[in-house]
């Protein structure tokens, strides 16, 4: 095995330094393409069913701007902090990267907490998964996004643990790069949810 020598000098873009890294990044972009279709299908379903409240509360009665605005702000900020983390990665500043990634995870947790609070609140108002097509479509779309956030949090936390042991290498760098791509993607999806589900739900009257 003695033939490799691990160089201590990291290349400028360590995430793209190896073929494995390049493959992972390309594969991940493709995966996000598939995720786009997935969320696209959920959005289409939601749009088709959003007025089918089956006698339950409508979106105008449910949604509440301050709550959603806070959630949006938190998530957008977390995207920014993950950018700072990647900038630190490119400077090979491990400490700073870890700090910013931790902030990202914490903001993600805040977002999730708000979402759980929101869901509980709606259920009390009689808006459930089983109360009608609108409820089913709402919880499925927004819940799918929430599950993605949860997955992202666990993922980033796991690779954070790795850097404690392994530091920043050409093996760990691509993982962070991908996690940040994923995090931005989740954020973009949220911007669409904010627009299509909440804004359109709050201002739009009953269609048709």
């Amino acid at each position, binding site marked *: 095995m003695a033939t490799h020598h691990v160089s201590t000098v990291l290349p400028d873009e360590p995430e793209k330094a190896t073929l494995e890294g390049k*493959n992972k990044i*390309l*594969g991940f972009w493709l*995966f996000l393409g598939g995720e786009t*279709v997935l969320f696209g*299908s959920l959005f289409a*379903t939601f749009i088709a069913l959003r007025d089918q409240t089956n006698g339950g509360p409508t979106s105008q009665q449910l949604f509440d701007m301050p709550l959603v605005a806070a959630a949006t702000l938190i998530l957008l900020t977390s995207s920014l902090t993950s950018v700072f983390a990647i900038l630190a990665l490119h400077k090979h500043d491990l400490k700073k990267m870890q700090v910013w990634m931790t902030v990202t995870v914490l903001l993600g947790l805040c977002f999730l907490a708000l979402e759980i609070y929101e869901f509980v609140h709606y259920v009390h108002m009689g808006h459930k998964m089983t109360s009608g*097509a609108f*409820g*089913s479509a709402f919880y499925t779309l927004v819940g799918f996004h929430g599950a993605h956030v949860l997955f992202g949090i666990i993922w980033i936390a796991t690779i954070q643990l790795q850097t404690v042991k392994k530091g920043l290498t050409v093996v760990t760098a691509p993982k962070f790069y991908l996690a940040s791509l994923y995090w931005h993607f989740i954020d973009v999806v949220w911007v669409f949810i904010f627009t299509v589900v909440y804004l359109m739900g709050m201002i739009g009257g009953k269609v048709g």
Partner: protein
Amino acid sequence: MSAHAHAPKRSGIADWLTTVDHKKIGILYLIAGGFFFLAGGIEALLIRLQLMYPNLSLVGAKTFNELITMHGTTMIFLAAMPVIFALMNAIVPLQIGARDVAFPFVNALGFWLFFFGGVLINTSWFLGGAPDAGWTSYATLALNQYSKGSGVDFYVLGLQIAGLGTLIGGINFLVTIINMRAPGMTFMRMPMFTWSAFVTSGLILFAFPAVTVGLVLLMFDRLFGAAFFNPDMGGNVVIWQHLFWIFGHPEVYILILPAFGIISEVVSTFSRKRLFGYSSMVFATALIGFLGFMVWAHHMFTTGMGPVANTLFGLATMLIAVPTGIKIFNWLLTMWGGQIRFPTANLFAVGFIPTFTIGGMTGVMLSIPAADYQYHDTYFVVAHFHYVIVGGMAFGLFAGLYYWWPKMFGKVLNETLGKWSFWTFFIGFHLTFFPQHFLGLMGMPRRVFTFLPGQNLEFGNFISTIGVFGMTIGTILFLLNAYVTAKSGKRAPADPWDGRTLEWSIPSPPPEYNFAQTPLVRGLDALWVEKMAGNKGMTPAEPLGSIHMPSGSILPFLMSGGLFIAGYGFMYHKYVLVGIGMVIFFSCMMIRSLKDDPGYHIDPVEMDEKGVKA
């Protein structure tokens, strides 16, 4: 043994459960897919026996519904796709001069997910009844009110798991083809089979998430009381149809494009000519892939979308005939003036051409909305799609199997048995499905378990069932051939057909690292270029050196097993099982993420003709 080499020590069954070698995974796909092919074939045989005479009650209505559902589902998801994946795994990396696929671990995971998903669906037969709402599983028929029992739950969960495997397999092929081509292997020098694998993988990537969503919604409706498709609670059944066919139509191109690729390779090799119109073939493949996404609603003409939508989708569908026609003429022109040989592989390829053309013509007939109101849900449709998927894809797969068997297993299939198998299968096929066109035009509905005497449907149905015996014999002869060939001691040379592409430049079967030295590609039909220049083999693009290989892993198997367990948990509302399954799944994922794989090295001095064994 040199000190550098750390060959994996596993052997026997443990080796197969942990392998990440794309050639072995190809063989696993072939065995599992072949097994499901037999299951689907037995189901088809039973369906046809039930329809041999009017008013028979051989299996009865309930079982009949289960049989057609399982036949369609099995054939599409568990037989056809996996065998395609078998060939793509075994051949694509070789054709582009790669040592491996981009993600060997993910590749193994893809296989095991498919396998466990398929097993899950099939256990339904023993656990209270198989799914019975048709392979399209239309709501409301597929909801609890109309499909009682857990049959459709098996469909939903099994396909979800298997579909995940297909999706990651598709991504793996895309990255492999984009990033891992040998020096000189430009996109416009890629063999047609690799091109078709590329486009097919793209279709998988964009089509499967749609059905994933559809299956999730159906699962929520059935298991958790959601209301997506329940009109009483504001749900909308047409959403299912859209999601299903946004996936379902591309799916038929996912199946047929690789067959097109195989035919291009086989026809050109056995005509000893380069493929006529290579660049137009590439263009046509990509165009078919694109148009495949634009036409899904031709399955929904009778849903009530209105004349404008029907017309547009009808026209878009007819457009596909143009690139398809280009392909057919190019194959004919490749053969034109070539030195044609007819081993079994080429018999299947040449048999494919007129058969698929007939299927294509009935497809154009179906794309006329007004006419479709007449054909819809009759045996005309059954005849059409079997001409396309059996006459097209299955013939293509057989051609590919006969052609690449030596590369995969190191033995050439027996030609005498091969020819018998071709002719019985070919004649049986046309006897089975040609009369169904007329049965359909005479009004025989599909998915109905029997028919009445005195409506002139007896003769056609009888012939159709007789034809199945021909196909059955053909299949048995093929299996016999595989067995006889495995027993025979004759080993295949590296290049048994005087081939044109890279896979024929290395031993049969290839060593685990494929190429001792990455080859330098100097034109289309890379090996042929060297042969014409009088060279013995490919020119290497790198010096001989130690080769790094990934180590095997049991994790893909365990992860898929975890989802398998969780699947049962969801179905029976046993959330402990869901928990256990998910814990297995995520812990394996965690282990994979925390433990880096150092792999092992193979030293050139010990490189010999060690290949895959099966």
